């Protein structure tokens, strides 16, 4: 048993446990953050994905001692993030979840991807899902949700960018319902 300090969802948490305990177990059993799901315990399904300094990782494989100096974000901690919220609305509208067990992991993975538009060409965000399995949806509704969000982000950039021209601004602003922040992008239902 060791006493460890972890930064989870912006809060310092002290936990007493075996340093080799998988992070997923510490989150779920110690901190009751059960949004992180366990599907395989061997890093093969992606349901346990969390963010470690902004990068998606499989928390079922990570010994908790290895993540003491990192900022950990779980699906619970992403609530309020404008990209997460836009994606959550789109996933709901498109039917991107059925049984829902893989969904938190997919939300975490995609939120991280949407925060790094330089890594993904438009229309290729689904490549981020290579480590997430979904058995229910066949991925189409998830793809549609990504497309809705990225379309919203693109028009947002057009409206908010410094070099905007007046025509694009009025069109984009109308489409977005005068959005003033990413989180308020109106997702058509």
């Amino acid at each position, binding site marked *: 048993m060791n006493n460890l300090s972890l930064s989870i969802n912006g809060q310092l948490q002290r936990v007493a446990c075996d340093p080799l305990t998988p992070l997923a177990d510490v989150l779920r059993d110690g901190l009751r953050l059960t949004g992180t799901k366990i*599907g395989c315990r061997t890093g093969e399904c992606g349901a346990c994905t969390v963010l470690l300094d902004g990068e998606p990782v499989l928390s079922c494989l990570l010994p908790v001692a290895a993540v003491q100096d990192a900022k950990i974000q779980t*699906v619970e901690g992403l609530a309020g993030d404008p990209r997460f919220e836009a994606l959550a609305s789109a996933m709901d509208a498109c*039917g991107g979840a059925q049984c*829902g067990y893989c969904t938190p992991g997919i939300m975490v993975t995609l939120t991280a991807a949407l925060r790094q538009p330089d890594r993904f060409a438009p229309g290729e965000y689904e490549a981020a899902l290579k480590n997430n399995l979904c058995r*229910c949806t066949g991925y189409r509704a998830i793809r549609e949700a990504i497309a809705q969000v990225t379309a919203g982000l693109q028009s947002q950039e057009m409206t908010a960018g410094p070099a905007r021209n007046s025509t694009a601004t009025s069109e984009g602003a109308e489409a977005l319902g005068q959005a003033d922040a990413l989180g308020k992008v109106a997702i058509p239902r």
Partner: protein
Amino acid sequence: MSPAVTTHNDLDDKIRGRTKYVADLHLPGELVGGILRSPHPHARILSIDTRRARAIPGVHAVITAADVPHPPFGPTQYKDWNILARDRVRFIGDEVAAVAAESAEAAAQAIAAIEVVYHPLPAVFDPEEALAAGLAGAAGSGAAARVATRAAAAAGGRATDGSGAWAGEPVVIHDETPDNRPMHIHIERGDVDAAFAKAAIVRGGRYTTNRIYQGHLEPIGVIATWDEAEGLTLITPSHIPYRARETYAAAFGLPEEKVRIQVPPIGGSFGAKYVHKAHLIAAALARAAGRPVRIVFDRYEDMLTAHPRVPLTIDIRIAADETGRFLGKDVTVWGDAGARVYWSPNVLATACSRPDSLYHFGAVRAEGHLMYTNHSPTTCMRGFGNAEMLFAVESVIDEIAEGLGLDPAEVRLRNIVHRGETTVHGYRLDSCELEACVKRVMELSGWSRRKDLPKYRGLGMALGNHVSGYRGIDPRFEGSTAVARLRADGVVEVETGEIDLGQGMSSTYARIAARVLEIDPARVLVKSGDTGRYPFGIGTLASRSTVMGGNAIRLAAERLRDALANFVAEALGPGARFAGGVARVPGPDGRAAPGAPEAGEGGSPAPGVAETFGKVYDLAELARLYRARHAGDALEVRASYTPQTDFPGKDFYGNPSPAYPFAAHVAEVEVDPETGRARVIGYWAVHDAGVVLNRVAATGQVVGGVAQGIGWALMEDLRTHRGAVQNLTLLDYRMPGVADVPPVTVEFVEVPDPHGPFGAKSVGEVAIDPAPAAVANAIAHALGVRGHALPLTAESLWRLQRDARRDGGGA
């Protein structure tokens, strides 16, 4: 004025990680359960020593067969189950002993400390060999010996997967079934031999389907509590909990009312989670330890014991005349039940009959052998035997078309069923838009370009049908019961015995009730999933939830609406009227208010409006008024729906379902000639699901079914060797990822079914039924040679091409 209502939106909870599945739940004082499993496919248990296990700190219970009752029981009429194995183990993974401990570590230690001495017995893994192995033991029967010799020769003369370890000695897996064949069915209509005698063309062969893991992302889990007064309570995601309850009550000799199953949200099942030995073992441990016991599998144990799709070996022939009209169909099907019967008999019976209500085959004959083997038991999965048989049927139809030089779509159109017909097995098709589905999928997929596709590209078509509930599931009744209640806050609570397993049932039920009551679906709360609280229901299988549960919900909502109308007239005066989700009282001039504000939104109408047109009461106000006048009670009604269907008797004849859905699918594939790897690059699915009540959910069912069908056809197979599964991880058992599923175009041909709620039919299983066949037909078109054994992996397609080149002298 009504309070604002929080929408019950299970999707939003799932998306945000708020949904609590069984693994997220804990009871005070709960212990961790573990199961000791047989390492042998077939062995006698000589002794079990649990003394060392009991001495491990933190261990509260160690149980073996000596500690549990042994009545004959099981989920079907074949009562071959036990709680723990007594005397004999029959497959690798068979449950021998179990422990409950304070921690998972202590439980694992205790499991490892149990000493079992086994005497290995001869085992059999191939269904045909299993019959021979059983008959080989029937001494003195000349006929049996001849059959045994013939079967052994047939089995020996066939290329197997290398697992054929049977050496010809007698093997009887259950003493009560000396031929290892718990079920043997014949279905025959018309003169099959005469049909084949006059045929212009006959095509067929042997087709085999694979051992598919259901692949639910949430591993199997249960929390059991045993209380002498209350009985047994199981928290577990079973989608057929009342049937499971019956099985478990029989196992422990309890009345059904003393077994309660509470169903948390289900993280996927596809057939795997309805009834499971882990539930029984957790219950026995909870009784022995006097504490709640949880068992949540890891992926390895889940894959070992989830009990896959029943693998079928199908010998098929179809006869047609020179115009492509079918004259006869003859099939023999061998089903591998494994060592215990779960739901394999029903799967086999479906395989032997269901496609005969998709096409007019003329005379049909089917013989089905359900065989015990020393494999882990097999059971139901979405598609339920029909998709398996359609793989064979649709493959053969393409061969007939090719043989006659006809377009495969044209051959299908000449033989499909239509509305108003009664099929050869008695299915009454009161709605059927199959022809429109075929024509539309041809347009969408650009079917006419099929003949011009380059080599290694192919287009394949396959059709599918299914039921919307099946009368044969329960001999006693079919139907569903719902309760509708007006809550004091104006929310309509609807209770059902059916179970949501992520397919969107609750949201569809909310829409049905809302439509009847003319209110916002967000004001309907659907509740289900507790056998101790909600109405009895058969559960979610046989694609029954929309039509069975949906009709019950519709009837209950109608009753609630009528009861509200009566109450409004009684309480607010004879001129008062309930419509549009509100009650309107006529004003002094006798006219009712023309439009009411949305409930909970604007409060009471403006004073001027009330003076002129009279008062408007929303549901919350009516609920409170009702409560005040009925001693605090809530307005509550219940209704049952019973379909007019026939129980299929021994001859399998009758109309077993009120409504039949249909589908036409086209897949486009590209095969890499170097590696043999096939990729699906386009997919089009047109469905007749009646009137679509929930478009997002229905489309999601189709796409999800297609994705599972693609995995089934190309990737997935639990490989066994001498009864041991070789690939018990998700890296070795690949299911489709996002890159494996092409864009899927989905359309519905919407014509109301007279029996479905608001004209709706089912969609969940018919979504997967044609998919493996459509992919297989596309591959055969791309390569010019046909694979007969699923899955059509890169290796198998590479070999097919190589053999074709060798046999055909180069391509």
